[in-house]
């Protein structure tokens, strides 16, 4: 172990990690999946969705922003944390208008996949049915705010990777909405269909137009295996070596 590495324990498993990484990154490198929605590799962590909540040395912390520490004891896959995550996912569903039955992101949607992974078949909280606007003004990209989970992945990708700053937020709390940098809607911005911001969306909010349901049911990303399986298979493969 080098001086740059620390030792920590996730659900009792001892792992080594670079001291500059977060708990989420350290877990992923060791084949442990910590559920997440607002975190995306290559973007600065934001800590918005709280789906990655873990107990680090007993304190509730988002794994995407919590740095590793030598000797840290992390609880991840516990009934308490799974319950908290289920509640968070439930609330995300009822705060938007997520109609999976006709959403073209269905089967490729991280929120939907997260719900399935956590055994959620229907929300337990009452639907709020908020009024949210669709912006179809851009020739190649659609914003459907009904499906926005305010994860800010597009906001950060546009700023950090595309160098544009097309997206931001307006309003607070239940009135918070995804905004764009032009009063004329998305068509008035510099967004290009190939921008990283477009592909950063985990749900069906920011979508390339005219793609629709090109991938048949059964062949979509999460039709075959649950979200997180790609990370967990790393551990399985390592175990087999």
């Amino acid at each position, binding site marked *: 172990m080098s001086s740059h590495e620390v030792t920590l324990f996730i659900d009792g498993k001892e792992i080594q990690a670079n001291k500059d990484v977060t708990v989420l990154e350290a877990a992923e490198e060791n084949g442990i999946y910590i559920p997440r929605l607002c975190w995306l590799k290559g973007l600065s962590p934001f800590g918005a969705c709280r789906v990655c909540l873990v107990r680090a040395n007993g304190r509730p912390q988002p794994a995407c922003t919590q740095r590793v520490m030598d000797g840290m004891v992390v609880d991840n896959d516990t009934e308490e944390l799974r319950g908290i995550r289920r509640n968070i996912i439930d609330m995300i569903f009822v705060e938007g208008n997520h109609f999976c*039955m006709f959403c073209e992101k269905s089967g490729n949607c991280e929120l939907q996949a997260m719900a399935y992974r956590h055994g959620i078949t229907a929300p337990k909280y009452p639907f709020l049915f908020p009024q949210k606007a*669709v912006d*179809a003004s851009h020739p190649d990209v659609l914003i459907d705010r009904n499906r926005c989970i305010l994860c800010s992945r597009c906001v950060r990708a546009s700023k950090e990777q595309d160098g544009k700053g097309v997206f931001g937020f307006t309003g607070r709390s239940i009135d918070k909405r995804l905004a764009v940098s032009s009063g004329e809607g998305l068509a008035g911005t510099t967004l290009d269909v190939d921008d990283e911001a477009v592909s950063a969306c985990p749900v069906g909010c920011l979508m390339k137009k005219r793609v629709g*349901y*090109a991938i*048949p*049911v059964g062949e979509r990303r999460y039709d075959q295996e649950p979200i997180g399986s790609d990370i967990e298979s790393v551990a399985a493969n390592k175990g087999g070596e």
Partner: protein
Amino acid sequence: MSTTTEKKITIEPVSRVEGHGKVTLILDEERKVDEARFHIVEFRGFERFVQGRLFWELPVLVQRLCGICPVSHHLCASKAVDKIVGLDQITPTGEKMRCLMHYGQMFQSHALHFFHLSSPDLLYGFEAPREQRTITHVIEAHPELAVQGVAMRRWGQEIIKATAGKKVHGTGAVPGGINKSLSLSERDALKCELDKMLEWAEAAVRLARQYTLDHLEELAEFGTMKSNHLSIVGDDGRMELYDGKYRAIDPNGRVLIDGVPPEDYLKIFREEVRPWSYMKFPFLIDAGPEDGWFRVGPLSRLNTCTYIDTPRAENARVDFHEKLGEVAQATMAYHWARMIELLHAAEKIRELLDDPDLQGEDRVAAWGTRREEAVAVIEAPRGTLLHHYKVNENDQVVMANLIVSTTNNNEAMNRTVQRIAESHLSGKPEITEPMLNNIEVGIRAYDPCLSCATHALGQMPLEVTIVDHQGEIVDRKLR
């Protein structure tokens, strides 16, 4: 459930039909039926809430109207969207996969209706005790029929899954084609059961035929009236369920309209609104609202088409008309006609499963020049279905008009209810629950989908209310 007050009868719900309906019978001073109304009491509003959505979502969105025949809406919307993206022709693989989906849907829906929804009436009689008129009783007394019904429906659903990705509410048809081909393993699995399905379909035709001929005297007048008939047909007048042009005939078989493309539907139809129903009343403009009403569905398709392009169903069609006349009008003949279509669907499926185009990779045609408006028509299991959309420059739907099969049959179903009420209930001192089933039998013959007709949601209960001349409820039957 059934409730009776001093002066009103209500039956609720109308059972073994899709959706929620209610019948009101208005009596005169001598307890004779003065007026009978078949109300659809659901409201859903699809035409409004698709506004603002993106046009490529339509095939997947509007099929949620219905869980029985979503494929019909899925394909009709897809055909309209093809036109929106500038296509009048899609690839052979796209077209044939969609047709396979459509015939699979026709097969399963017709099997469901005959074997499970209508069989209790046909096996036990219209006024059989209520506890006998159930599918569970059919399962006990005629397990072979019940099992056939289940197996035929399953096979049809497997075809839908192989073409649409799911048995209910799939995503197969996309603008310009289809998103999957039929794999050889999928094809072979379906072909394994093909001979059995053809055999059972022929047996079902024989059963429906025999039932109709055995009871012809009674059925010829039961809920029957001379009507116009409408459907789409192929270019040469053949029965065509996936794509064609309008043809309508009058009660004597005279052609009223022919070769009318879907786009011209507003030139030939109007829809009348009546305050007591959420369902509209379509009629042919030239004939007017009084005489221009028509019927759609299996009986009408048998009447309007010149021939059927599959041999076994064509033989059955010829026999059907020999026995019932060139324009069969008996409402209960819908059942026989429906089984002939079931056989036709099985024959079409056999043709398609042997077609190598289903394994083609050229699934989606390149889009052409965008259009702002499109109309498409398809023959759903219950009859002619029309979708009309307008789309703005941002790809959003700004107008939708859906005229579904059951809406087309609205006037006919009301007249059938009126006829049966007059023939079976009028002037009777007491109206019993089994007597009221006659009304439901008449409605059921059309295999109505009341959810689709009002683009509505829910179960399919029927309520019958009988009101006297002073507006007081005589009886009410709820189920």
